[in-house]
């Protein structure tokens, strides 16, 4: 639902970076989005395509790199893979998990000119 804000946030970062890194066009954007980032990738692609028109990223392509969700299980003392916040530890069944990776929502890299 807020993917439009997120897409516009991307454009803002690009505009700021265009000044500081001295480029005028963005051809490709790589994002890292974790499964716990409350972002729907398809919705974000749709919004991205809508907001880039007429900006420095007009026609840019979007690459979304998925990251695995990881959590530290307090029950069995190890790092385990999770897909959702309500997942139990796949090893011991505990819900005492501290998310260590998976809520990222970052612009990793740009192809610019």
């Amino acid at each position, binding site marked *: 639902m807020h993917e439009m804000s997120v897409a516009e946030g991307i454009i803002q970062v690009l505009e700021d970076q265009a000044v500081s890194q001295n480029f005028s*066009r963005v*051809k490709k954007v790589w994002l890292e989005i974790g499964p716990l980032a409350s972002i729907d990738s398809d919705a974000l692609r749709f919004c991205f395509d809508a907001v880039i028109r*007429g900006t420095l990223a007009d026609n840019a392509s979007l690459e979304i790199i998925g990251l695995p969700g990881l959590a530290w299980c307090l029950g069995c003392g190890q790092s385990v893979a999770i897909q959702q916040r309500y997942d139990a530890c796949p090893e011991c069944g505990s819900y005492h*998990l501290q998310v260590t990776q998976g809520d990222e929502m970052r612009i990793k890299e740009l192809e*610019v000119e």
Partner: protein
Amino acid sequence: MCTVCGCSEGETRIEGHAHQHSHGHSHGHEHEHSHDHGHEHHHEHSHEHSQHHNHAHEQDEAHSHQHGDGLHDYGQGAARAHAPGLSQSRMVQIEQDILGKNDQYAHANRARFEQQSILALNLVSSPGSGKTTLLTETIRRLQQRWPLAVIEGDQQTSNDADRIRATGVAAIQVNTGKGCHLDAHMVGHALASLPELEGGVLFIENVGNLVCPAAFDLGEAHKVAILSVTEGEDKPIKYPDMFHAADVMILNKTDLLPHLDFDVDACIEYARRVNPDIQVLQCSARSGEGMDDWLKWIETQRSQRIEQRIRNLQNRIDQLQAL
């Protein structure tokens, strides 16, 4: 929505600010969008400009070199003309959070709250959970003790702010237009219209929505998720991001429990699955049961902030005395 200036789809209104703020900021941004007819955002607040741009630019691509923040951008036109030597493709590693801008504004809000020992609480819930009733009841019980103020977020109307003002406490309504959440910049603007709050409590009643407000830090001390027992007990796992982001879950309308099948224990267990540390309070703003626990929690948080500030100041005094 523009997360820089909070102007939403051009429809954000902050009482007392009318539309001015949205013109003040995002011009570079707006021009780039205004000829972009496919979607509705930005159009309304750029009426003065966009009515010229909207149609003219559809054919006239030659404008594009002016855009891109003062850079020489020859590449936006349909012909994709590039000035030789200027446009070599390269890779830039930036590693930036997408919502970094919002986080900067949130950081500024938080610094301001800390400087003045203001306890800021971001109240989040689905529509109809009883946030505003809980808030008016909370205010009624606290307003003689400390300075209080409210920022009300809704898509439309100032009904909620009117209800708060009826208690005598200052309230600013932020209408997000089509936006589904408050962002830190809107809150920063609204703060400017609120009275002095040192040592007090600021309640930010977010747009009723269990999804989007989870992602937007407003600079608050705590997110407080309110879940009424007329909703399903599985809401915490249906909307895990919100219950993960919240430090406290208030189960509201508990006076209705005898009439419902709501399983309180299951609800709390679900909430702890997504957030093992979440604190749970149960109350009914209507009957008053459990309200004391909630007020006590607020009091504790408020005291901690003031004590922390005193410690910081004391340390500073010690440093100065040692000079």
